């Protein structure tokens, strides 16, 4: 982990990510006034996912580290997906 500037986000990038997060927060907030529909919760979670991706990618430095740690980032999400998929395989086919 050399301390050169290439291994870390620039100040402008950090600020840019913060701005993007705030825009996404605004988008999620304004969802409340949109007409109700089954797509709404999915959209809200999608926005949350976008925020999460930005945080993981830049704030948590996934972009700057070796790929071993990705194994556990993706692993956690994949195992959560197993938990949801097989549990709902039961609930949705009762």
């Amino acid at each position, binding site marked *: 982990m050399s301390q050169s500037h290439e291994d870390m986000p620039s100040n402008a990038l950090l600020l840019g990510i913060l701005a993007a997060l705030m825009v996404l927060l605004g988008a999620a907030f304004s969802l409340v006034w949109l007409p109700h529909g089954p797509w709404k919760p999915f959209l809200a979670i999608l926005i949350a996912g976008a925020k999460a991706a930005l945080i993981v990618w830049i704030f948590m430095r996934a972009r700057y580290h070796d790929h*071993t740690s990705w194994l*556990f980032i993706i*692993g*956690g999400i994949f*195992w959560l997906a*197993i*938990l949801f998929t*097989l*549990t709902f*395989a*039961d*609930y*949705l*086919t*009762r």
Partner: protein
Amino acid sequence: MDNSANSQHHLVNDPPENVAEEPQENYLNEGKGLMSWLTTTDHKRIGILYLLTITFFFCIAAFAAAIMRADLTTPQGDLVISETYNKLFTVHGVLMIWFFLVPSIPTVLGNFLVPLMLGAKDVAFPRLNLASWYVFVAAGVFTLYAMVAGGVDTGWTFYTPYSSTYSNGHVISMAMGIFIAGFSSIFTGVNFIATIHKMRAPGLTWMRLPLFIWSLYATSIVIVLATPVLAISMFLVMVERLFGVGIFDPALGGDPLLFQHLFWFYSHPAVYIMILPGFGAISEIIATFSRHRVYGYSVVAFSSLSIAVLGFLVWGHHMFVSSQSVYAGLVFSLLSFLVAVPSAIKVFNWSVTMILGRVQFTTPLLYAVGFLGLFTIGGLTGLFLATLAVDVHVHDTYFVVAHFHYIMVGGMVMGYLGGLHLWWPKITGRMYHEWWGRIGATLIFIGFNLTFFPQFILGYLGMPRRYHTYPPEFQFLNVVSTAGATILGLGYLLPFIYLIVSLKKGKKAPDNPWRATGLEWTTSSPPPKHNFEQTPTVNEEAYAYKD
């Protein structure tokens, strides 16, 4: 230094010859007094702390089992009342699973051996390692309190809404103990993952790792990803009991099956948390005493990883007779058959290794051979249970009890004892008495089969588990089972005695008494505090046996 080990791992500098020197510096005499043990961050000493702790829990849990077996010799159950019996099987299950089997190989042999096998000075996070032991002890205190205060009668599965609403026992305290014990497991798992990824000696590539390391890596992944789900299921039971909210209570709008999904998402993979480290120990034993590389090394290594993944896809087979959807049942049944494949591959490869090698029937190998037979029976009967229609017949009977004891005791405990014998000279610097060892291993094998084989028949004939009375026609097989348990108990007592005796009376162990490969055998017995005088360099595969 032994010649064969010398040629396997070309060290930068060979460790000094030290068999003859008397009071040699090692991790055992490095610091004196109780405090030096309680504040140690040395992975080897933490392994010893765990060894003592889990042996204590094993004894309590075994005692509970002994009372149950004694009670079952008569159809009326003359020894204890039903309520006491319920509390006994709960204590037996909870302690054996979370306080003996889950921590057994990882925290004792794993803690001791992972850094040694990797050529590292310690695990990645030594303080976290010590913390895990303290957390484990704290968890044990909660659980023992629940036991002493009056016990819990829910069984180790804590099914809702019985555990959350109706049971009168000390469920909260025991659930708390399990909740906390989970964190101890997670700390150990995180430590092993980081250690195996980042602390390997120069030249020790993934495909040169001992299979013990592969299996502990797979175990750690399962621990890290499954245990938090158990923690939440226990948390929800506790909160529901405390506040009377009905997340698992259909009368209050909840769903009891949600608990079963969460619980078995952990507790089925927990079977692999328990058995995968056993696989690792067996691989080492068989390679060492067949003097041959494990046949199909990479297949055995990757089958551990595939078990770690597939093991998460089958939990619904515990819920075939619940109100789970039939279609989900079909999927879970199919996936359960799949998980048998990697296990079968391992058994096949171990057998071939023994055929190709020159087998020495030492104590650890006797345990390993016993493991192969018992694990195969346990695994094949698992296929019966994964079949939907057959499971309806034998669900909640002694057939299930026999099946998982063949895996957990016949498999895991044999693997643990075999491994303990294999590495005992390295851990203590003393040799145990070989003939007593062989007698012990044989007694355990005979006693085990006599205890649990009749239970397959009892279950198939319809004797339900978790009852302490039964129709008189089942008495003969129950008496046989109890007689077997007596032999089994004697079998466990033997190693307990001769291993302790060996500490005083045993011959001094050379660095590599089995002429085995592996970095742990290149250092002295017992190893010095920092494991190696010089960081070793590896340029060969594991199990490079050349004679």
